[in-house]
């Protein structure tokens, strides 16, 4: 960006400054620390100048928003055109309760829904299964059958909202239920907008709600890609997630590297299943974390966008512009929230919101201040949503595109994160790709090491967490927290029992038998799953059949 002569001058000036001005200052006021690092332990220099971005060719590395390599953003006008989608992840107890929370959030100005399912739903058990005991309705809403889904979206027009569903192993079943509810509302499949998480690899790595072994899981995923590219064209078929990888303790570099490595594995699987890359790649989306180190996070999103564009173009030969774009959802980092002085979390979430927005996110969930204590209360959720709204309407950061570009530090950090992520991806390629690297425990081990180091840094006070290892106060008893009534489990079981008596059980049996036959072939399972859910076959019944045919994944733990 600078000519050689200028760079020489700057280098000279910087040396002089270091030798004279800085030395003098340091002799009187030493710096606070010997070594400065980012939140993810990348080295941070005292000062960045044009010399630190000297190899930058503007057009090649940054370009223009909405154009390759998308470093500056995926849309030409970014938030000047439309603000990011404010999408709070919510869901608890019964479908009735969650439906009320969604209507409340929509009334408060939220622009998209994000459904949290309880753990039994996420791992394919009905509410009356033994393993579901104590978990029904706890971390999300309990969905056993289409009946619950009908209640969940009652009075919410599915052609008007976009819905994101955090569901992975049984994603095809929940998507089928959503399609069936829409049909009952008179909304055709091609009008549905939303996302299913559908990212099984990070479940093995970090999140834990797997059911089937990798190969069978990948088949379910590519079945969805194929089905949706024809039938539900506006649906984002996967949200390739670094969020949970970061929550599990990874660094920013690892978050980018492991997420994109997973992305590569999905693209490869789909191509292998006979799909054309440009048919499904435009519907791939990503999901990242927003941590506390504001500038590092901004650089992270920019690096991820540029790297993915290159991968899609150079490695997979994608032709459509949309195939090259890394669109992403962001959630602020739950793991940074403290149980101590919980009001401080509002400030953390504000910083993280700025990071996501300055990094060009397409949608955002802001965490509530009380999440280190329990499920969030309605008041806490409102403050979290207001935080986004204040950043959107009062801070001014969305008025121009990618405002931090050109900062010597940001560009240098963007380059470094990209470079280090590339190194990791090469290593994973050598191990045979992400699924193999997961099988070997390599990715998990890398994350565990980072998580352990992070904790040790807190304990040695190398890393300061306000309220936890510095500026502590005597904590008050936290009273205002949300509790899920244990009644929920009983009610949900009762509803399920009634359903099993009311529905046409012969039809259910036939659908399950058909599903089993198809599961043994290589046919696309989606239409058969849709048929089954329409007959009010339960999620657990469908998963049981698939467990029978596919088997179950067994976690390998390396400490």
């Amino acid at each position: 960006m600078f000519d050689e002569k200028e760079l020489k001058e700057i280098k000279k000036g910087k040396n002089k400054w270091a030798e004279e001005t800085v030395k003098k200052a340091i002799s009187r006021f030493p710096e606070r620390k010997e070594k400065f690092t980012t939140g993810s332990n990348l080295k941070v220099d005292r000062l960045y100048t044009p010399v630190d971005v000297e190899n930058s060719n503007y057009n090649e590395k940054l370009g223009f928003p909405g154009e390759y390599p998308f470093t500056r953003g995926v849309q030409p006008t970014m938030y000047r055109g439309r603000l990011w989608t404010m999408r709070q992840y919510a869901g608890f107890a019964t479908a009735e309760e969650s439906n009320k929370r969604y209507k409340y959030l929509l009334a408060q100005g939220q622009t998209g829904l994000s459904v949290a399912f309880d753990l039994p739903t996420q791992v394919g058990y009905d509410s009356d299964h033994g393993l579901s005991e104590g978990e029904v309705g706890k971390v999300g809403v309990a969905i056993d059958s289409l009946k619950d889904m009908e209640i969940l979206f009652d009075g919410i027009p599915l052609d008007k909202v976009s819905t994101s569903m955090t569901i992975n192993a049984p994603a095809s079943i929940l998507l089928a239920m959503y399609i069936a509810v829409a049909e009952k509302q008179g909304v055709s499949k091609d009008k549905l907008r939303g996302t299913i998480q559908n990212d099984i690899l990070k479940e093995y790595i970090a999140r834990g709600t797997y059911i089937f072994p990798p190969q069978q899981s990948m088949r379910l995923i590519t079945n969805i890609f194929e089905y949706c590219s024809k039938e539900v064209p506006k649906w984002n078929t996967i949200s390739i997630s670094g969020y949970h990888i970061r929550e599990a303790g990874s660094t920013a570099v690892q978050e980018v590297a492991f997420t994109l490595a997973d992305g590569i594995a999905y693209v490869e699987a789909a191509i292998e299943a006979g799909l054309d890359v440009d048919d499904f790649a435009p519907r791939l989306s990503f999901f990242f974390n927003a941590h506390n180190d504001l500038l590092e996070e901004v650089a992270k999103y920019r690096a991820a966008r540029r790297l993915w564009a290159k991968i899609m173009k150079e490695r997979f030969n994608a032709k459509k512009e949309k195939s090259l774009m890394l669109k992403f959802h962001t959630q602020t980092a739950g793991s940074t929230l403290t149980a101590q002085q919980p009001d401080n979390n509002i400030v953390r979430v504000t910083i993280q919101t700025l990071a996501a927005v300055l990094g060009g996110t397409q949608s955002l969930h802001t965490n509530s201040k009380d999440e280190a204590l329990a499920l969030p209360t309605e008041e806490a959720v409102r403050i979290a949503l207001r935080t986004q709204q204040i950043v959107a309407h009062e801070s001014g950061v969305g008025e121009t595109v990618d405002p931090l570009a050109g900062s010597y530090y940001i560009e240098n950090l963007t380059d470094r994160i990209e470079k280090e992520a590339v190194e990791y991806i090469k290593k994973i390629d050598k191990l045979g790709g992400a699924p193999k690297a997961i099988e070997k425990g390599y990715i998990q081990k890398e994350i565990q090491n980072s998580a352990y180091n992070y904790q040790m840094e807190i304990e040695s006070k190398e890393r300061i967490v306000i309220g936890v290892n510095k500026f502590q106060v005597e904590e008050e008893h936290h009273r205002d927290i949300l509790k899920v009534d244990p009644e929920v489990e009983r009610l949900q079981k009762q509803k399920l029992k009634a359903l099993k008596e009311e529905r046409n059980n012969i039809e259910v049996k036939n659908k399950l038998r058909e599903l089993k036959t198809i599961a043994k072939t290589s046919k696309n399972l989606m239409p058969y799953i849709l048929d089954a859910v329409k007959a009010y076959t339960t999620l657990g019944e469908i998963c049981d059949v698939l467990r029978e045919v596919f088997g179950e994944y067994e976690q390998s733990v390396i400490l």
Partner: protein
Amino acid sequence: MERPIRVLVAKPGLDGHDRGAKVIARSLRDAGMEVIYTGLRQTPEQIVAAAIQEDVDVVAMSILSGAHNHLFPKVAKLLREEGVDDMLIIGGGVIPDGDIPFLKESGIEEIFTPGTSTTQVIEYIKNNLKR
């Protein structure tokens, strides 16, 4: 020589959040204890069986899904039913203050909430063994 402290680190229920459990497992090991980690999705019955089979001194459970009031006491109860009274049972996770008295009454000796340092856990275990 006295045998090292043996700890079963366990994840009861369907919760997949194992960052805390793994960090605890590793720091206990670094503190010289023998650590067995169960992995995810363990039923109370499986945890009790593992604790007895491995002849541990401590059962340390972690839950972040909100199912602690159901699952922690169940493990304590099953251990009592098996006649085990020399194991220290502790728990950790996102556990509201209000739930702690009930958990302690149910036989969980100590509950560690977010912000706890690994040193605190190590010290607690060393000072409260039942053997």
